[in-house]
């Protein structure tokens, strides 16, 4: 079921969390709400879930205006950053909770919970309590619990934020596969642009309670709408009014044309690629990203003087 948010505003005291936000989330998509902390992305998710009442505007699930419906009537599945596991219940009871409060027949609950535990690979841990699970397992349990009631939409609030880097990477890949399997309209809130790019088909960039841009990961990276999006979705060099991605800077050892002279300050090895941190005469810092091979050919090391030339740059008109 698609989600439509129309001109939603929300204030907490003097703080404007959402300022006239309108977004359309297509049915069956996996959309990321991306923004820095305090940007309003979580508030938007909670407004969609019905956990927060907007001051103005509308929320539509499919064609139904659910703005004034309580969370329990909306048919959304929600996953929280800190798992929100029911600590006094076993994994099985956690997953069965939504079905039990809906008074589904016992046999149906049995089958469904079994199915879901298999889906999230926790079959063997059904009798454990949340305290006996790892963070990643807890979050998979929370996901199974949210999916148990066949939600129309699945809302994930920084679901991997409390996990360590490796588990986070695994779960991202797993979430993508899961979404291909179950195809429920999903929104994931994150402040991590890499996570958003890796997982989502569509990204909504939010900053200071406003939507800055909506697009596919590629669109955001290739043609950012403004300065904020440009610098938020990846590293960027600012040269006067122009913006250049580190990948779009080519280096040579000979001066050529309008290339700018700079000294290598540090070389960072990122695996396949190398990041060169440069500093110009006037003190301005530059980042250039090149392949291992290119770096070797130039014999880059600390103190070497290079000439940097942007191969592609962006200027935003204000």
């Amino acid at each position, binding site marked *: 079921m698609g989600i439509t948010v129309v001109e939603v505003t929300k204030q907490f005291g003097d703080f404007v969390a959402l300022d006239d936000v309108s977004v359309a989330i297509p049915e069956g998509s996996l959309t990321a709400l991306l923004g820095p902390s305090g940007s309003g992305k979580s508030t938007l998710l909670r407004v969609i879930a019905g*956990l927060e009442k907007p001051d103005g505007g509308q929320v539509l699930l499919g064609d139904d205006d659910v703005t004034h419906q309580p*969370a*329990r009537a*909306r048919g959304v599945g929600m996953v929280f950053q800190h*798992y929100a596991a029911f*600590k*006094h219940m076993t994994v099985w009871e956690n997953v069965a909770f*939504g079905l039990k*409060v809906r008074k589904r027949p016992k046999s149906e609950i049995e089958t469904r919970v079994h199915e879901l535990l298999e889906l999230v690979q926790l079959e063997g841990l059904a009798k454990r309590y949340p305290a006996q699970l790892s963070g990643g397992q807890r979050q998979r349990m929370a996901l199974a*619990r949210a999916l148990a009631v066949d939600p129309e939409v699945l809302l994930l609030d920084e679901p991997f934020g409390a996990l360590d880097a490796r588990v986070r990477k695994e779960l991202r890949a797993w979430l993508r596969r899961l979404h291909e399997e179950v195809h429920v309209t999903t929104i994931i809130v994150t402040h991590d642009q890499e996570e958003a790019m890796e997982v989502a088909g569509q990204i909504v960039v939010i900053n200071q309670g406003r939507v800055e841009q909506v697009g596919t990961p590629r669109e955001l990276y290739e043609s950012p709408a403004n300065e904020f999006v440009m610098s938020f979705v990846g590293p960027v060099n600012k040269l006067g009014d122009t913006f250049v991605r580190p990948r779009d800077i080519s280096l040579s050892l000979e001066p050529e044309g309008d290339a700018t002279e700079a000294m290598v300050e540090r070389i960072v090895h990122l695996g396949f690629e190398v990041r060169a941190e440069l500093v110009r005469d006037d003190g301005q810092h530059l980042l250039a990203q090149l392949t291992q091979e290119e770096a070797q050919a130039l014999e880059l090391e600390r103190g070497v003087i290079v000439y940097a030339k942007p191969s592609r740059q962006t200027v935003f008109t204000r």
Partner: protein
Amino acid sequence: MTAKYALRFGALGYLALLLLLPVGLVFYRTFEHGFHPAWAAVTNPEAQHALWLTLIIAAIAVPANTLFGVVLAIALVRHRFPGRGLVNAIVDLPLALSPVVVGLSLYLLYGTGGWLGGLAGHGIKILFALPGMTLATIFVSLPFVVREVVPVLREIGTDQEQAAETLGAAPFTTFWRITLPAIRWAVGYGVVLTTARAIGEFGAVSIVSGRIEGKTETLPLYVQSQFEGFNTTGAFAACVVLALIALATVLVMRIFRPKEEAA
């Protein structure tokens, strides 16, 4: 090493001198002349009545304060309302006020010429009867459940409750199946403390009861009246009953505590 032992013996010695010795002495004096005089002293009708009255008052005050305590704790932690800070402060009042003040204020309210003193004329007897004594007990034992539950509610946060809500649970279902199980040890601990206070209360109850022998005497009041009447065996034997109830309470507390920490 020596410092550690000195500390240990210091702490134990302090407790022994101030707590164990006096209470132990009561036990000793009670059974000084054997078990039978003590048994006779606690099974006489007046002592029995006092014990019974104490238990009845506790049986009303404890559930009342438990229900009120849980509701108030939820209101204080989960809701914002005008006067919240004031309510929060007032809850602690019974801890700060001397029970005598509580007793006297109830006396002024319900006594002859008091605001609600007219009730007696309509056949509703508050003072010198069970209702007044129960009110006094409820007053002095009011804060314990609230004070135990508030920090736990704060710590568990609202995530679990909100998760239950999105899963389709109505507010009462969420309370019953999520919130209550999460705070159950705190409630249990609060109930134990409330019970201990309700059973042991002397000052406030003493004033509103009028201390009519065999009618409005609770166990602590009975101890006092027997002591004043030079029936030391009776006084000490009743003391032992109170001490045993306290001991049982402490044991129940010990059962609650470790589980609370493990959770």
